[in-house]
């Protein structure tokens, strides 16, 4: 059996704010296999963002171990770790420095990790832009000149610049319009295939999850309540909270309404 790319074992995180203790993540364990797209779903307070932040090394876990390719990740990440795991954030506007050009923001990753010859890095940023469907000439533009969808593509290009293997996507399309979201999801799916990436896809939007994830992990109030393949979770969910979540999603077609009706009855029966 192959080793998982990322592994969490008994991870918990407690925050001490204003004299109170808040357990944001409670004894969570799961694996992410190489090349898969694992969706992390939950509502506010589920702990999904906290888990993402710990995986990214923004702050350490209180207890438990997070391992990458078999070795435990330390609290202080070094450049090698940083290169392996990258992030695409939700808000395309604030994730790009308004006072730097697109090219400069992309180049940062190349400069920090010494990727390629210094002279060729500007060209490389152009290539990255083309890979996400934008013209290389956007290098010289500032973020304000781009639309939300375009900015998000730049954010994706930035995550690719380090040639990382694991990409954490924290609600990457939640701030985008419907049509733009479809294009960006398509791009993400294509990139995963062409580059052999592994995705940890955090979202509250179950209908997106249904169409892009291989497996789904459902979180409620810091605990992992259910994890399984997409098909299983959506056709035969075990946990009442999962059923409640599926039942609440607003849908557009008659088929989906029928699917939901089934879960709504089950959810109401358990309330």
């Amino acid at each position: 059996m192959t080793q998982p790319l990322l592994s969490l074992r008994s991870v918990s995180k407690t925050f001490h704010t204003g004299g109170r203790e808040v357990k944001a993540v409670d004894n969570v364990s799961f694996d992410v296999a190489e090349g898969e797209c694992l969706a992390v779903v939950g509502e506010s307070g589920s702990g999904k963002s906290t888990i993402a932040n710990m995986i990214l090394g923004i702050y350490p876990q209180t207890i438990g171990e997070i391992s990458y390719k078999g070795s435990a990740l330390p609290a202080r990440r070094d450049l090698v770790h940083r290169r392996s795991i990258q992030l695409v954030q939700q808000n395309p506007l604030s994730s790009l420095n308004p006072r730097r050009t697109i090219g400069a923001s992309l180049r940062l990753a190349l400069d920090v990790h010494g990727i390629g010859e210094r002279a060729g890095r500007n060209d490389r940023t152009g290539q990255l832009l083309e890979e996400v469907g934008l013209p290389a000439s956007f290098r010289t533009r500032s973020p304000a000149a781009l639309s939300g969808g375009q900015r998000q593509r730049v954010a994706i290009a930035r995550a690719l610049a380090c040639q990382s293997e694991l990409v954490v996507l924290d609600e990457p399309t939640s701030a985008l319009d419907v049509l733009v979201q479809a294009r960006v999801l398509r791009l993400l799916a294509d990139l995963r295939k062409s580059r052999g990436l592994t995705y940890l896809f955090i979202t509250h939007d179950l209908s997106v999850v249904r169409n892009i994830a291989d497996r789904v992990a459902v979180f409620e109030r810091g605990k992992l309540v259910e994890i399984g393949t997409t098909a299983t979770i959506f056709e035969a969910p075990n946990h009442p909270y999962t059923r409640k979540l599926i039942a609440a999603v607003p849908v557009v077609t008659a088929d989906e309404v029928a699917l939901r009706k089934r879960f709504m009855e089950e959810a109401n029966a358990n309330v």
Partner: protein
Amino acid sequence: MSAPTLRIRDLRLGFKSWSGTFDVLHGISLHIGKGERVALVGESGSGKSVTARIVLGLLQTLRSAKISGLVEFEGRDLAKLSEAERRALRGTRMSMIFQDPTSSLNPVYRISTQFHEVLQRANPRIEPAESRARAEKALADVSIADPARVLDSYPFQLSGGMNQRVMIAMALANEPSLLIADEPGTALDVTVQAQTLRLMREQVERHHASVLFISHNLGVVREFADRVYVIYKGRIAEQGPTAALFDNPRHPYTQALLRAVPRMTGDGIPEIEDASESYFAPTVIHDGYGEPEGVA
């Protein structure tokens, strides 16, 4: 037949800046009958939010805004009213609820104070005791278990879902004939959003209010609205009854929108163009759902 609650005819909006005029609305027409729930669906930049603000009379005072066209509320032409008369309508005959309930409520006042202010708009001489009694009843109507405690709280002490209920109660307190809902529930968790929408539907039915529901979320619109207007870059692309429009969209833009929404049945992510000449095709009107001729 009485005048529709809201009637908009060929509304145009442009913003003047030092580099020329920027047109946002290119002549949209819509109407809402008494008790009807009508949705205005579009993406960002479509002009749906500015339309709501024009109905409320909030954009007319902006010097750089050029507005033309007819906006009639309960048979009265809003352009012919003075600013004071338009202001008198807000909060009484027409009210609005917003996207993020916690930030739309004033953080430094208790709910009871804010509710009192709302009730004062319709009845300037209302006594605090009476407004509190009415507020408690209104909060109980939106299924708040402990109205007294909520009234004594500040918005930051309540959850998003709770604040949304408070906002709905406040918006309907003066029995408005038109409720404008701007992306309600978008800031809420999906389970809370579902409850909130159900609640809104009950309440508007109970208070016989018409609703202008502005949203980019097609699923929510399908659940809530009787009729739908799809707006693209300041033009109405398609209009018709909800079921017919969703089951059989006829305008290229509506079709693209519906295809783009990910399905819970797992049909994958389709190839969509996010901009296309075809999206500018003329308005498609489902039979029998056109705009009524003017009531002279």
